[in-house]
């Protein structure tokens, strides 16, 4: 497994406040990494350390296995949570400028801009000032600004805020396309539905500490509570002590939907066998916890 970025025991204090406490994460190349955490957990601070805006008090950041330098930062595209562009500057000039300070030659910037402008069908925005654009339009420009230099690592801090569902979908598609093209994406958010959809790996930060990380699927497995959802005909009665019914709903006549929780040691097949004897099974599925559930249980749990 190849890592594009690793942080090793990052600690950062602001005065007496410890913003990050011994945070180590590893980001797999070519995957979408979800950096999760409630507000004020330290996500933005960690991102700012990765982009070299802040220096860590202790700990190191490695980019492709080497200690992070200014040159590496040019390979990172960053969409900050607080969006901002020069209001009085024209869209085209602004993007050229932002591309140029990332070290791109002028021809290349123009070529990439053409690509993006055609993609978003916004050719006629070129000479408009940022001021004249709507909020959603500005967001699109900002998104282009963060990927214009074809970064190998893209950091998106809450990329969907401010977009209507249609535009959010366009951006989502672009994110997946960028991944397809080989970029690695760090995706910082506290909105779990997009994490569920997009992320391969996640890390959960709460109160300056990393409390959880790994592959999304694996984390779900780790947090599963052996809950199953079945649809069946006939009453489900006489189950043994290893399985109990949490909830039953009538769908239609004698068609029911039941949620069960089994003891850990029972395999899926054993459970199925047990059920087949009792009722006619129409469907059978294990219900894995959503990232949202895990987030709430872990973050909420610590709060208590």
């Amino acid at each position: 497994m190849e890592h594009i970025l690793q942080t090793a025991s990052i600690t950062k204090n602001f005065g007496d406040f410890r913003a990050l406490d011994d945070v180590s994460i590893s980001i797999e190349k070519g995957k979408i990494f979800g950096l999760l955490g409630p507000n004020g957990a330290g996500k933005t601070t960690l991102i700012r350390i990765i982009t070299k805006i802040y220096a860590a008090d202790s700990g190191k950041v490695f980019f492709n296995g080497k200690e992070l330098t200014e040159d590496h930062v040019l390979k990172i595209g960053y969409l900050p949570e607080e969006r901002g562009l020069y209001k009085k500057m024209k869209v085209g000039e602004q993007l050229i400028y932002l591309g140029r300070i990332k070290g791109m030659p002028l021809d290349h910037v123009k070529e990439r801009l053409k690509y993006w402008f055609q993609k978003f069908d916004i050719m006629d925005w070129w000479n408009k000032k940022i001021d004249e654009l709507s909020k959603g339009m500005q967001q699109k420009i900002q998104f282009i600004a963060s990927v214009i230099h074809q970064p190998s690592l893209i950091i998106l801090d809450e990329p969907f805020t401010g977009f209507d569902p249609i535009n959010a979908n366009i951006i989502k598609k672009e994110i997946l396309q960028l991944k397809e093209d080989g970029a690695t994406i760090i995706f910082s958010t506290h909105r779990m539905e997009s994490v569920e959809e997009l992320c391969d790996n996640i890390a959960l930060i709460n109160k300056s500490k990393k409390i959880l990380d790994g592959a999304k699927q694996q984390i779900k497995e780790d947090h599963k509570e052996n809950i199953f959802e079945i649809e069946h005909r006939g009453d489900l009665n006489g189950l043994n002590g290893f399985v109990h019914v949490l909830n039953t709903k009538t769908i239609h006549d004698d068609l029911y939907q039941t949620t069960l929780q089994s003891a850990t040691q029972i395999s899926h097949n054993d459970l199925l066998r047990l059920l087949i004897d009792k009722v006619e099974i129409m469907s059978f599925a294990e219900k894995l916890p959503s990232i949202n559930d895990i987030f709430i249980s872990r973050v909420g749990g610590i709060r208590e």
Partner: protein
Amino acid sequence: MIIKREYITRVRKKSFLIMSLLTPLLLALIMIVPLWLATRDAPAREILVSDKSGFFEGKLVGDGTVEYDFYDQPIEILKEIAFSTGKYGVLDIPDVDIDDPKGITLITEHSASIEVKMKIEDQLKRILEDHKLEISGIDREKLDNIKTSVYIGTSVINDKGQVQSTHTEVAYIIGYLGSFLIYILIFAYGVQTMRGVIEEKTSRIVEVIISSVKPYQLMAGKIIGIGAVGLTQFLIWAFLTFSIYSIAGLLLDFDQMQQMNQGGAMQNTAMNAADTEMIKSVMEKIDSINFGLIIGVFLFYFIAAYLFYGSLFAAIGSAVDTETDAQQFQLPVTLPLIFSIVVLAAILRDPNSSLAIWLSIIPFTSPAVMMMRLPFIANEISWDLYLSMGVLVLSIIVTTWVAAKIYRIGILSYGTKPSYKLLFKWIFAKN
């Protein structure tokens, strides 16, 4: 790249163009228009004179700007004639006592212009004076010879023992111009730097940019970019002012001006002797002034003072959220700048006093004060000029370092209104 953006976006603004073109034009207009108005040929004002004393007839003669016609008719009739034929007015001279003329009136349809009034007064005065001189048996020529005017030339002995003439008035004007230009340019462009930083901060673009370049680079780029704009503007001003004056000099008929001088000379030949001597001395002095040195030093102080104050302004901009908050911090920075303009008068009184020397060494006041002193000491570049420059350069290093520290942290802190204590902490913060 940053420098380029800062420079281009500002230079391309319409206001820059207007300011660059209009300021010298306005200055030139202020200087030239009165000259032009004075030399222009106004149509002769015809004035009907009713002279009951009978003394002035034949003596009061027109000179092209004012023409006189003497009439014996009563004043009421003259008035009617004057206003019906479009004459300028009627001069009513009652039977006056020559020693104490009272009651002379100029009656005009509209208020009489001060120029005409003074002209007539002057002429009447001379006629009466001539008359009195004649009675007393004094020749006018003799009297003019008696009138004396003294002009003291000033010169200094330089370290080679040579005597060099100086000209206090010229030095004064050049010094004042230099320090005022420095003051205005630094103020204008320093505040622009601060605004630029605040704009970047409030629009939050700063985070995007400093994820590409170091905060220090961004700050330096901004300061240098805006400084270049200031320099461009100054050069445009200098160039335009110079060319406008040259063109104006050609356009305005030189003979005409000389005539004017001669006209004045006729009236006051004695004064004129001193005038010519003074003008000669001024010309000599202007020739003797080391303009190369003054312009060179001016550019140095302009750039250095801008870097010094610009970085302080940038630091202020980074620490606050809005321009209103900035005022609190702006004051201690602008105060010495204003102070240096206020003390100019004192410097002028004695350009080599210890106060003047010290103020021209302290970096906060040195640019303006040194520009003021420079024409007085330009003949020999003294140790204090070098010291002043050296101190300023060192101070620039210190202030940019301090500014960079504040900037780095300030640019990303929102919401908190910083106190001086906090700023102090930022300066010594490690990261």
